């Protein structure tokens, strides 16, 4: 088949089996469907240019170009389907992969990403890697994009100037449907264009930004590989807040698992 899908009683995610990429998310409970493009991209960091000598570094995010490069235009995929889990494993490159996962009873898609170690044969001062979800949603040119309600903004950094801290969740909507991504940690994020949503996941930089660190972000140890999870919810706008609030609670205050060898320990219920 040219199309493969994973689904439970609430959600269906459809993939193009030729490219291995996510094509569609459906909320079957509310009969909503949303064509989605999803992939990993990277911005080339700036080492300073004619407009400013400011380089990208630990403190400063300043990409060289507004147009990012895709890590890959396709993914090698493996499909796992059992009674308790359905997963599509996507391998974008030797250093970028993810698992898109559905458990029974879940109302969200779980995207577990793993990036690194990032090879350094890139142009410029190194790559800043991010996930982008693109939908057909139409709005006013992205959330808070190049606009401030009470004063005239002269935006000199079209990408970095529109990046914001995302502490628990980010969403886009068309007034009818809402696509929400709950994060497992604080990340930089933005909606640079209508219907587009992105979250920065990793970076490896050759230059220092001159803000006191005096070291470039070239991690070579265990921290050169990063793994995290994004939880994607598609729902009606009226229903979205209740869903992402409950989900974010479960992510932040997740159950703690403790193991003990052998049979039952004699714990006192008191």
């Amino acid at each position, binding site marked *: 088949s040219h199309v493969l899908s994973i689904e439970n009683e609430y959600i269906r995610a459809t993939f193009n089996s030729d490219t291995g990429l996510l094509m569609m998310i459906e909320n079957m409970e509310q009969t909503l469907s949303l064509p989605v493009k999803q992939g990993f991209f990277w911005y080339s960091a700036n080492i300073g240019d004619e407009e400013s000598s400011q380089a990208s570094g630990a403190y400063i995010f300043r990409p060289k170009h507004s147009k990012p490069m895709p890590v890959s235009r396709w993914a090698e995929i493996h499909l796992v389907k059992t009674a308790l889990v359905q997963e599509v494993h996507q391998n974008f490159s030797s250093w970028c992969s993810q698992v898109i996962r559905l458990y029974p009873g879940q109302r969200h898609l779980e995207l577990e990403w793993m990036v690194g170690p990032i090879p350094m044969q890139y142009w410029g001062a190194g790559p800043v890697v991010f996930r982008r979800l693109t939908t057909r949603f139409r709005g006013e040119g992205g959330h808070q994009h190049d606009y401030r309600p009470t004063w005239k903004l002269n935006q000199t950094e079209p990408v970095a100037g529109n990046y914001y801290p995302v502490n628990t969740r980010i969403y886009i909507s068309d007034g009818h449907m809402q696509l929400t991504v709950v994060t497992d940690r604080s990340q930089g994020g933005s909606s640079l264009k209508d219907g587009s949503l992105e979250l920065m996941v990793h970076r490896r930089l050759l230059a220092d930004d001159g803000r006191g660190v005096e070291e470039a972000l070239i991690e070579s140890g265990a921290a050169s590989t990063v793994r995290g999870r994004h939880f994607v919810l598609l729902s009606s706008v009226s229903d979205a807040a209740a869903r992402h609030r409950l989900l974010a609670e479960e992510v932040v205050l997740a*159950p703690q698992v403790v193991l003990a060898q052998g049979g039952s320990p004699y714990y006192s219920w008191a």
Partner: protein
Amino acid sequence: SGDSAPLNEAMAVLQHHDAVTGTARQNVVDDYARQLAAGWGPCEVLVSNALAQLSYNKQNFSFCRELNISICPVSQKSENFQVTIYNPLGRKVKHMVRLPVSEGIFFVKDPHGKTVPSNVVMLPSSYGKTSRWDLLFSASVPALGFSMYSVAKVTVRTPQASSLSGKSRKSR
């Protein structure tokens, strides 16, 4: 005697953005690691004391420091083990427990001794390398409480034993 104050203080220092987002120099990062390690030791003693008091049984508890990289010696090597799931939320949750195990078949029982459905999944990322397996089962945990599940590995019969038992069944 145990003490959680050093870990508490180390965690307070690590709220700085240098620790959260990695904007520190290498020697500062090394110092963060030193402070965490120094805080963790007396905290392990504190937790051991608490567990000994709860279980009326003083024993040497072991602590796993490899949880963050999906390695678990208990679940990967034990023939049977207990899984305790704590829920810090004020409402009941269903949680899919996912543990690294060795290849095999497992029986999982809930707190009432009833067998719950479980799956063992081979991780596709391990194809061609050393195979890695995950055990999955759904756990139900009460509000602000905990549930204990027991896991037992089924002893796999050798192919010879399987074929012999198959023959005897056939003859009957």
